[in-house]
């Protein structure tokens, strides 16, 4: 673990694995919940880092070091993760490509993807876009050689060690295997509370939905 200074009021904690990121995020969130990190404004996990930002002058950087020194990262606090089920229609344009690359049939891709338990490792790219860890090994595949200019909202893709769903239409290079069913709640709605359906630490499953068309 390395602590990197990020301006006057923030620290970037650098780690070696996604598992360590989850443990550090959970430990810091729990400490903040106990009031041990006053002035904490942002706690932003990413692939190999956790960024902690504090209000100016609150001395948070020193406290953060103390919290990490005493944290048992082998047994991080469980917190209170939400359990989210996302109904999915497995008819993505790259389903066959993903199946071929994995050396299995499309039905097996659906089974692997929908029977796995995922955790929101971090969010980013767009509001409400969660990078879900826990993707079965055969589905861990490279991005498309050339990204699509437009991925429709609700598309579900895989890339590297992650799967995720696009909250809204945007360019994107993930291999698309499915889409959120029409019955799925929006991933992000700024007028809803909470605005984002997925937050770091939440537990996610995909559920095969009928072949509703849109």
């Amino acid at each position: 673990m390395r602590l990197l200074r990020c301006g006057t009021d923030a620290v970037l904690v650098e780690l070696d694995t996604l598992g360590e990121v989850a443990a550090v995020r959970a430990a810091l969130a729990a400490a903040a919940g106990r009031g041990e990190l006053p002035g904490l404004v942002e706690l932003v996990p990413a692939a190999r880092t956790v960024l902690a930002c504090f209000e100016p002058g609150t001395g948070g950087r020193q406290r953060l070091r103390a919290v990490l020194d005493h944290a048992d990262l082998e047994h991080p606090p469980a917190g209170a993760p939400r359990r989210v089920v996302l109904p999915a229609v497995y008819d993505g344009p790259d389903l066959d490509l993903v199946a071929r690359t994995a050396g299995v049939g499309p039905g097996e891709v659906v089974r692997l993807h929908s029977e796995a338990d995922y955790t929101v490792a971090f969010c980013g790219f767009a509001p409400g876009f969660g990078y879900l860890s826990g993707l079965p090994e055969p589905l861990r595949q490279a991005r498309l050689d050339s990204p699509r200019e437009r991925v429709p909202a609700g598309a579900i893709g895989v890339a590297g060690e992650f799967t995720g769903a696009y909250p809204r239409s945007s360019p994107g290079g993930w291999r698309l295997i499915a889409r959120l069913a029409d019955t799925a709640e929006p991933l992000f709605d700024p007028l809803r509370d909470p605005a984002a359906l997925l937050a770091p630490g939440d537990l996610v499953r995909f559920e095969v939905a009928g072949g509703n068309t849109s």
Partner: protein
Amino acid sequence: MRRAITVLATGPQTLIQDLGRPGSAHLGVPPSGALDGPALRLANRLAGNPEHLAGIEALLGGLRIRAESSCTVAVTGPAVPVTVDGRAVGSHAPVHLRPGAELEIGAPATGLRCYLGISGGVEVPAELGSRATDTLSGIGPEPLRPGDVLPLGNPAGPPTGADELAPVRAPDRLTVPVLLGPRADWFDDPGAQLAGGEWTVSPQSNRVGVRLVGLPLRRAARYAETELPSEGVVTGAVQVPAGGRPVIFLADHPTTGGYPVIGVVRPDALPALGQARPGTAILFRPAGQYSDS
């Protein structure tokens, strides 16, 4: 009838802004908020508001509004002509508008962004606790257009007198204090490279970031081909993309980035960057060690 103003004309970019929505970066939500925070706070104080209420950020002026009810307003930011029904009233002072009065903000001679504070504040619906328009992610109200009617809150208190020195002139040359890190070690002699160079503000700059043109920053040989996994970034981060030309992230910055951040601008230097016109010379004054452990 509810207190309101009507937008009659807008400049190149006219946005509702408050102090933003920090605290949701872990959901992928940028902080947003007024780029020149002190100017918005001052406009609010002059209009008799708490500092955090929503006002209007008018890029290069050009804003004309009509008061639909009696209100107190104040224009801050760079020096700019302000008229009420064609009569000059000046900026950086509270001005009372009768119902039907028209206020016009001209074009500032220097700087970029003027702020209009209105008694009661603009009360469009808040999104994630803020009324700021986030130009990167589209959260918050649409950019303002002629014909928009903006509801106002109830005035909180009496307008205050001019409580600060009047308009700052945005300089042609800005010296920007930077604390090195978190990824300064990705660059050859980062302090010397930053201190020795001179950049200018590119016309491609916007609320996401100030893009700089000038000498590219050189990566250290051991990081020449390395890819950085995306990591959280803060406002003021000086990110260096593959081409080596730095970008200073402002309020609408993405919450994570995949290029190394050589240093972070001191927060009190950010408002001036929000007022830096294309062509402004930027000099960095680096300080600090880049590793904390």
